[in-house]
């Protein structure tokens, strides 16, 4: 509100302005210190809290949530003296997040040959019918288009593009276990269907 532009007043103005600026600078540095403190605290707590959030969201990546586990076939002694393929029904549990899909599947346990116990999928590699073991002929014969396989699944004749498919198996605590899988049909190589 200075109306009189005298030099002494101007000087006083300058001094006042300088004081004001110094006060402002002090206020600003105080502000930025508190701001920094605040920001730091927020970042620390925010980071600490985002860890469980991220882990929660990434759960399906950190653990297996969808997979076919091992299914029991039976005690290993059962299969020690087989002379022909034995059809067994297994229960397959597939986890899908919070659900499980339970299904019953058939598999063949083959007679032990050269100390190796093999498990075959009965699904025909031609078009997917399930192949019965024909005792009388000592062959696997597919009822759909008569693909024929030997006792160990080797292709004899018919439209099947490859031998019958082996399933991954293991013996755990005297229990024969298998991992059931499906394979792509109509191709000469064995390829797992996801």
């Amino acid at each position, binding site marked *: 509100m200075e109306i009189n532009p005298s030099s002494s007043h101007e000087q006083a103005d300058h001094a006042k302005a300088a004081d004001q600026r110094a006060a402002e600078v002090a206020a600003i540095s*105080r*502000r930025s210190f*508190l*701001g920094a*403190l*605040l920001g730091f*605290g*927020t970042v620390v*707590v925010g980071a*600490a*809290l985002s860890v*469980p*959030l991220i*882990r*929660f*969201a*990434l*759960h399906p990546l*950190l*653990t297996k949530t969808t997979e076919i586990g091992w299914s029991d076939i039976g005690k290993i002694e059962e299969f020690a003296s087989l002379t022909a393929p034995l*059809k067994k*029904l297994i*229960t397959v549990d597939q*986890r*899908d*997040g*919070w*659900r*499980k*899909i*339970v*299904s*019953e*599947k*058939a598999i063949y346990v083959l007679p032990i040959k050269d100390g190796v116990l093999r498990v075959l999928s009965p699904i025909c590699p031609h*078009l*997917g*019918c*399930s*192949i*019965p073991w024909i005792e009388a002929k000592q062959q696997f014969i*597919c*009822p*759909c288009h008569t693909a024929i396989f030997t006792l160990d699944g080797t292709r004899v004749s018919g439209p099947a593009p490859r031998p019958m498919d082996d399933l991954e198996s293991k013996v755990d605590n005297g229990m024969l276990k298998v991992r059931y899988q499906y394979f792509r049909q109509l191709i000469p190589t064995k390829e797992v269907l996801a």
Partner: protein
Amino acid sequence: MGDAQEPNGKPGEPRLNRRERIYQWFDRRTGIGSLMHEALDEPIPGGARWAYVFGSVLLFLFISQTITGVFLSLYYAPTADHAHTTVAYIVKEVTGGSFLRSLHAYGSSAVVIVLLLHLTQTFLYGAYKGRREVLWISGCALLGLMLAMAFTGYLLPWDQKAYFATTVGTNMASEVPLIGSTLKRLMRGGNEMGTLTLSRFFVAHVFLLPGAILGLIAAHVYLFRKAGAAGPPSEDPIKPRLPTERFYPRQVLMDTAVALLMICVLGLLSHFSPTDLGPQANPADTQYVPRPEWFYLPVFQWLKYFKGSLAVVGIVVIPTLTAILITALPFIDRRLERRPWRRPFAVGIYLAILATLITFGWLSRHEDRLDPAIAKQVAKQTEETEQFMREPFEPEAAASSLSAPVVVVLDPLAAAGKKIYESESCDACHGENGVGTSAAPKLSGATAQRSPEELAKLLRHPTEKMLAGEMKPVDVPEDDLKALVAYIKSLK
């Protein structure tokens, strides 16, 4: 850089350093400077105080609830079939799931507590006075919506206590005169509690209420800024005279400090004492003693005193009158006097209501403890909940699942039929247990529901269409055919 349209100020003005230039560039395009000024430089008459922190803390809690809620919905399925399994999955299997769910559940309690503190502070400071009626009403609406959030969220886990507490809660709606039963059916999506109730509560909890709350928070903050901070009780609510202090930094620091403290307490609680989940809701359980969330206990107790034809008074009339009284407070109490000791009547009523609520809440607990039958049942329920929490997570069998035991419990004839089904290689095309394959249709379901005579005929003499699909006529003795038909019938 040659930015011809934006010369770097007039000659003689101090040259800006790099950071300032970037800030200026950004500010000219976004107005971030005036936005920050608007947000942070709000003047507070009489300066910053701890008493003013509750509004900001509520906003912070709302954001926290939103974040945890969104994350929880990653694994949640809002149907009566799956809700409980998915929550159990979150609690027992998902990494950090129990913690997050607890944070959300304790967060809802924290919201109610801080709401009460915010309301109490506003009331005691007379901060609703002086052209702040609309601001007050928007706050009351927010209070109502937040309580609705707590009510709808409580059902979502679909465990025993959720189910039965909500059954009681929705039953109360039927006491409303004229539209009562319609209202109840509207909330439940039918006469009974069921999957439609859950859908409705989910949609309200996740879409409708949060949307409304978001809009109202914006309005509430805008109206608050419009009216200006009220300052201490000695301040004139319309023309403040006290020297002011800006919102930033001290008030912001206080707000943030309390918010951080709050989240730390919630975090520790969630970590060391996670919220539990009871066994899945069993509508057939007639013994269950339903108890609502703690902040609904006073109302619950209150309702006990209104039996029969009086129920409408307790459930509808008095709560409605109370709500109207609270909402209309700035219209009823029009004096500009804010100091609580100069308004003994208003403050007295407020404290009386608060004391009543606390007493009723305490009485509710107390009576439960005194009644041996109830105390025993409540202890049993607690034990069942603890038992359920100890059990490992049991995934839910999908609808397409074939449960092996079902196939085993066959009558002898059907069991014999199953052997024939396999020896005749029917399973080769129709699949194990008639589930169907790419080669032939499934037998379970519609086919299994045909009459035995019809099935026998079709097996002996397949139709043209069946023959074209490579179905072979079944050539077995009559008895075996009977068994086969019995087996197919068992596949339903």
